[in-house]
């Protein structure tokens, strides 16, 4: 029984603005709202901002962006980020053959600065700043509170409902609640249907003292390296790897098209291990390997899912919640766009104050995203034309055929081609149009590696931890008896993909979220899937690839990332 005696009389509490989520998008929105004098309440479901967040690890400040994070939080780079990227390379891998290109040109295109970050320290720092700022205008940040849906009146959105506190009404609701946004889904603006719309990233944060980082990457204090990996080290799965240097650790991870993971029945943690144990990484990892944290995240492909009109009634979507995650070839930009969008949403709210209709802020927000060029970066119109040609499988097969032939290899492999390739990799336009097929991710890089590469002769001795150990090292506050995911269909046909695509599950592994088992019923055999949500890292993969009812755990419950 409830022991609550508090009066449920006085109606709902009201704030001028409610921001759900205190990542970079929510923080940017809230700080700008506070600048505009708007009474702003920020709700964060983690025990602290950043405890639910994972990113590959680079945040950009673009020259062309109307807002960058250090515009809004001037001390950001000194206080909340790790190392700037001063050395940027891509490695095309074919077996032990590796051909590396300097990507600094591409990287520096439109880049004011770019820093590696870890989300727990970064977001928790942002939370403190945002709390200070929003407290000045009658609001503040509350952590450990999960938004679970929208409050409606006569069918119109008027506020937000929560697990831990009573519903709140607001003049405007900014949903910055991440890639698995419950509010975007409740509003009918996003869905979890197509694996083609998503990437999945997994990451290991590896302990390394600062002197060793400097030494092994040949950098000084205040400098940092970024390395990208593509080619045949991930078999035929479309995607690539990354390595970024932090202050006293490395972020090493892999990002793959979710549909490709499903098609190839690939195990994400094994793909990560394929990168970690590749001979190329030996010179950076040495012979001792201490993994601080294993994590995973779903990434929306903004080219396909960024909403051109990310609002409904008085609800505005910001960042991953609105699909605002740009994959520009090998370079992935998410946090910077979330910051821009958050700040623009806040400006739109301030401008629309006093206008009668509920969608005034949303309309202004969409128009500002368009006019500032942000939407064109997220969802380039030219991609919609080029993808029609290059993603058609017939074309792909033809190109693949030529590339794999001796003529094709020779063409890519000659010396002039090497120069052209170097230049092509550094052309933002070309890279952005690289089709999302095996050609761009696997075939071309492996041919480059084989034709131009040097052979790595040393061996990589490290042994990454097992999946069981990785799960064992994570911190959980399990909501016992209240699982946040339910399997709607436990047949292997409907939900079996989760057994391998889930980053904390694997075939033949009993300690993960999803397991498959063969059950005999009335003489016939049936392959079923079972679920235990305890090891869940809340990435959302299974919501897309399996038939589930998926919610986040209650506030403060579930996994707690320390690095992020």
């Amino acid at each position: 029984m409830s022991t609550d005696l508090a009066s449920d009389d006085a109606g709902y509490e009201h704030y001028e603005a409610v921001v759900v989520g205190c990542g970079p998008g929510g923080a940017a929105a809230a700080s700008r709202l506070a600048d505009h004098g708007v009474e702003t309440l920020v709700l964060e479901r983690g025990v602290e901002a950043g405890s639910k967040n994972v990113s590959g690890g680079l945040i950009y400040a673009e020259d062309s962006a109307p807002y960058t994070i250090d515009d809004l939080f001037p001390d950001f780079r000194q206080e909340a980020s790790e190392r700037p990227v001063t050395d940027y390379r891509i490695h095309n891998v074919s077996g032990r053959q590796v051909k590396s290109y300097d990507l600094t040109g591409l990287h520096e295109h439109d880049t004011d600065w770019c820093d590696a970050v870890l989300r727990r320290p970064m977001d928790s720092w942002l939370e403190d700043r945002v709390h200070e700022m929003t407290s000045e205008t009658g609001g503040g940040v509350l952590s450990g509170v999960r938004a679970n849906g929208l409050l409606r009146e006569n069918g119109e959105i008027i506020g937000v409902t929560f697990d831990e506190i009573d519903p709140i009404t607001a003049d405007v609701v900014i949903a910055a609640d991440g890639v698995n946004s419950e509010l975007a889904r409740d509003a009918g603006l996003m869905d979890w249907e197509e694996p083609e719309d998503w990437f999945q990233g997994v990451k290991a944060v590896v302990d390394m003292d600062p002197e060793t980082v400097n030494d092994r990457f040949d950098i000084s204090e205040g400098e940092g390296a970024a390395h990208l990996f593509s080619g045949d080290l991930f078999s035929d799965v479309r995607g690539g790897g990354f390595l970024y240097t932090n202050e006293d650790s490395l972020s090493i991870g892999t990002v793959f098209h979710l549909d490709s993971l499903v098609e190839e029945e690939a195990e994400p943690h094994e793909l990560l291990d394929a990168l970690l144990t590749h001979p190329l990484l030996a010179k950076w990892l040495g012979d001792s390997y201490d993994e601080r944290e294993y994590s995973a995240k779903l990434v929306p492909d903004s080219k396909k899912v960024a909403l051109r009109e990310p609002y409904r009634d008085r609800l505005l979507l910001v960042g991953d919640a609105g699909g605002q995650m740009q994959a520009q070839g090998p370079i992935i930009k998410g946090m910077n766009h979330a910051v821009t969008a958050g700040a623009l949403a806040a400006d739109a709210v301030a401008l629309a104050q006093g206008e009668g209709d509920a969608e005034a802020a949303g309309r202004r927000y969409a128009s500002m995203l368009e006019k500032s060029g942000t939407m064109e970066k997220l969802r380039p119109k030219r991609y919609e034309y080029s993808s029609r040609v290059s993603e058609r499988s017939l074309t792909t097969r033809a190109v693949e055929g030529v590339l794999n032939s001796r003529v094709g290899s020779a063409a890519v492999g000659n010396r002039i081609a090497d120069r052209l390739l170097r230049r092509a990799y550094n052309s933002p336009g070309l890279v952005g149009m690289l089709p999302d097929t095996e050609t761009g991710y696997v075939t071309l890089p492996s041919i480059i590696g084989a034709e131009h590469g040097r052979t790595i002769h040393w061996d990589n001795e490290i042994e990454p931890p097992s999946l069981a150990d990785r799960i064992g090292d994570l911190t959980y506050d399990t909501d016992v008896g209240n699982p946040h995911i339910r399997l709607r269909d436990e047949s292997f046909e409907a939900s079996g993909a989760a057994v391998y695509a889930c980053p904390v599950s694997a075939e033949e592994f009993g300690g993960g979220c999803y397991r498959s088992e063969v059950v005999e019923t009335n003489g016939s055999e049936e392959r079923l899937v079972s679920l235990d949500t305890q090891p869940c890292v809340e990435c959302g993969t299974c919501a897309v690839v399996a038939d589930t009812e998926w919610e986040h755990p209650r506030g403060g419950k579930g996994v707690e990332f320390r690095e992020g």
Partner: protein
Amino acid sequence: MRSIVLTKGVPDFSEGAVSFDEDGHLERGKTPTVMNPNDEKALQAALQTKVRHGGHVSGMSMGPPGYGEVLGEAMEEVYADDLYLLSDRELAASDTWATAITLCTGIEKYADEIGGVDLVFAGFKTADGETGQTGPQTCWGLEWPIVTHVLALDIDPDERRLRAKRLVEGDRDEIETVEAPLPCVVIADPEFSPTYRKASHRLTHKRLRAETRERAEEYEEHMTTWNQQDLNLDPEYIGLDGSPTIVSSVDPIPKAPSEREATVIEPGGEGMEELFGEMNEFAAARGD
């Protein structure tokens, strides 16, 4: 709304902290003093009242000067505004009766000199005495109503009444809702849980926490110590002389003799076979 929370320092009975001599007597000098664990719920109840209705919370304790630290800890937990320590050599060896008289006098002095008190909060039993008497006896001295075993609490400041859910006879299966006029003594049950369903309450809670962190670091500056003379207590009614309780003897509780035998079986195939063998024998012996 003005509240006083009563708290007591007790020996830290947790494993590793507590130390006993050969005869099983507590070695007081070697065992650190901590805040009585049940008092945490009294603090939470007082805090909830402060968060929801505003006002002033004071912590009060009777004990040696070293209890100041316990009050400092209480300040941090309840975000107390100030602290009162009733401390005098003459108060040593008080039983619950003499303690209640002292606390009662302290509360009355507080009410006269500092401000009228609406609520006195106390926890359920102390970890050392385990009597559960001091709270009710203090209340008897004040001639106020008392609500014990409180699980949830709501105050109506305008009507000057409180509403509480409480365990009947301390039984979790029987819960009643009672009302009482203020001022009132509230004894929080160990199962008391504060609720903050309003965003504004949570923001207040967060603000108070930030404010108190600094205050609690220099708690001594916010602590007033009252001795016997300050309290104007009759020596007949305090300390050892004022304590009618006589502890005739203390018997150590004998350790339960262990009758079980343990066999360690190494994990692995052979171990499993051995284990099943043992289980079969056991089952056969029982006639299963």
